């Protein structure tokens, strides 16, 4: 089971040189994946990364064969990664071509390319293993990654990648945001959409190819997709989302490697992905504004608002209130006394509620198509929902709170 001391040691970089190197590498990779993945998600291209990562496999196989053919060690890592990058580019180009030139939708094109390239890759790997050339042991680790025996050089490669990604994302952030939000406007601002997309894909490819070694090609896509969807729950601003997503990726990398170092036979790559998935579920449940639990709280808060408004209007009309929930809400807010007579604050609030009700009624008369939205909005203070000018316009037509009372 989990070795607590080893886990703490790993978290504090005291678990030995090799674990520290792996942890740093995984943190940087997670951060780069989360950052780039944000724009990929906002551009609605998340699945393209899946095609891209699977398309690396034949490249790895062919690079191995070529290097072994020329008498070298087939396992020379930079050579394998270059092969992976080239075949990923071919895969990406195929997806692009299929969606542009045929009637295939992009999901079908991605599926077709992904499975064809992956199939070819698996065949090549099987052939390589049967040939018995060029120290092929370990080449299968590209499928699920392997951090054991990660070298200092590889950690440095990851650091260089992370810095490069940081710089490029910073330089391109406005351009990418514009293209993701409003492509037509971006074009009229003089931005070359195709070039921007290409640069984004280049970033994705850089993350994928370097991630192959750590988490493997099947799971590397998780580092591009999960952190941004988790981050989306926490913020409504693109820049913040980029930062939060990078953070989620980095934390996943860190905790994931620490866990795998402290539990025997825990593979680092899949564990990193599982940690990211846990952070996603946590965000889904607990994030404010967009989380599931907050949503439940909000629907309760909404029904409270309904009772509050109904109760206040009843106070204003001098009607008796029978609904227990309404009485509870009104008492809780101090609007009525124990004997159900309204307090001073209650009467003031009732006056105000009637005014807002009347203003909303005028608003709806002017904008009948807003009825659905307004049913939700009209229980909030009007100043939070409409602009000062809009309210001034409504007040011009306002004849006093009596308008909210039913005609007797």
């Amino acid at each position, binding site marked *: 089971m989990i070795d607590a001391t080893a886990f703490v040691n790993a978290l504090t970089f005291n678990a030995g040189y090799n674990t520290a190197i792996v942890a740093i590498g995984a943190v940087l990779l997670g951060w780069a994946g989360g950052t780039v993945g944000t724009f990929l998600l906002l551009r609605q291209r998340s699945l393209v990364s899946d095609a891209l990562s699977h398309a690396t496999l034949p490249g790895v196989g062919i690079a191995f064969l070529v290097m072994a053919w020329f008498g070298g060690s087939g396992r020379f890592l930079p050579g394998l990664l270059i092969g992976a990058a080239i075949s990923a580019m071919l895969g990406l180009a195929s997806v692009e071509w299929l969606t542009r030139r045929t009637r295939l939708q992009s999901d079908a094109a991605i599926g077709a390319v992904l499975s064809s390239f992956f199939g070819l890759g698996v065949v090549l790997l099987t052939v390589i293993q049967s040939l018995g050339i060029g120290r092929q042991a370990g080449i299968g680790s590209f499928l699920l990654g392997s951090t054991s025996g990660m070298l200092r050089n590889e950690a440095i490669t990851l650091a260089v990648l992370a810095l490069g990604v940081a710089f490029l994302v910073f330089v391109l952030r406005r351009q990418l*945001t514009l293209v993701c939000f409003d492509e037509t406007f971006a074009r009229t601002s003089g931005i070359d959409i195709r070039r921007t997309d290409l640069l984004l894909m280049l970033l994705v490819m850089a993350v994928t190819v370097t991630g192959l070694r750590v988490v493997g090609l099947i799971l590397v896509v998780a580092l591009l997709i999960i952190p941004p969807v988790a981050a989306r729950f926490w913020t*409504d*601003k693109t820049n913040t989302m980029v930062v939060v997503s990078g953070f989620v990726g980095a934390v996943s990398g860190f905790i994931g490697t620490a866990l795998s170092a402290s539990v025997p036979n825990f593979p680092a790559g899949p564990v990193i992905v599982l940690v990211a998935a846990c952070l996603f579920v946590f965000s889904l449940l607990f994030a404010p504004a967009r989380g599931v639990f907050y949503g439940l709280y909000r629907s309760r808060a909404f029904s409270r608002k309904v009772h509050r408004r109904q109760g206040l209007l009843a106070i204003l009309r001098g009607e008796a209130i029978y609904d227990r929930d309404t009485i509870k809400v009104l008492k809780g807010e101090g609007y009525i006394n124990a004997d159900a007579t309204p307090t001073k604050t209650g009467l003031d609030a009732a006056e105000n509620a009637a005014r807002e009700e009347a203003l909303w009624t005028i608003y709806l008369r002017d904008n009948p198509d807003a009825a659905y939205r307004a049913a939700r909005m009209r229980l909030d203070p009007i100043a939070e929902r409409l*602009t000062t000018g*809009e309210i001034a316009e409504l007040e011009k037509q306002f004849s006093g709170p009596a308008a909210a009372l039913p005609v007797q």
Partner: protein
Amino acid sequence: MNVHNTDAGAALTVRGMSVAYGDKPALSSVDAIFKQGRMSAVVGPNGAGKSTMLKAAMGIIPAISGEALFFGRPLAEARSRVAYVPQRASVDWDFPATVIDVVMMGLYRSLGPFRLIGRSQREFALDCLEDVDMASLANRQIGQLSGGQQQRVFIARALAQKADLLMLDEPFAGVDAATEKTIITLLKKLVAEGGTAVAVHHDLSTVTAYFEDVLILNVRRIANGTVAKAFTDANLAEAYGGRLTQATPVLQKTV
């Protein structure tokens, strides 16, 4: 320098513009002139190519032939003088951005990749929002806005570009009466100060009240000129196939 003297004073000149989607023609050799300092409408039935003409002129979709000149120059040389307001429905409003973020997008071009957004840019963006009565909602997520409010955010973004020519694609589609009033008042003020506005417009009943010039389009050009001269029953009948010859006078009376 410019041999086309007739174009002098034109904010946008469209010459022989033809556009097709696949093999389906959308615009057939359209010529049109939109003068500086005027409010111009582009009207025509559904599928007449109104938005297509605007998009082709702005280089958003490719034209088979023809060209668009902005202030006598190709778009690439006049880009900073032209602002485009897309249709509201063309973007995903659930995008992670606040109202002021969207207005800031109008500044991206002049800021470039490295200059950071400071207080003066923020205040300028708020001024633009104030012009469309949206300053009090500056920090709202854009998905929470009403349709009219979203449209006004788009207009504010165009204002932030400080352009001489505003190209608006259906600015009044699906907006409330108050928004329509705010936008038209603002556009008229900009035009009075020397600006130019070209808007794709679908409501024939307001053409006379809102606009000075008009282009009537139905794949080809039907008429182009002042509203008084070009916006005639005969031209409308030609564009709309006679269906509106009865309706137009009635509609105009209700304004």
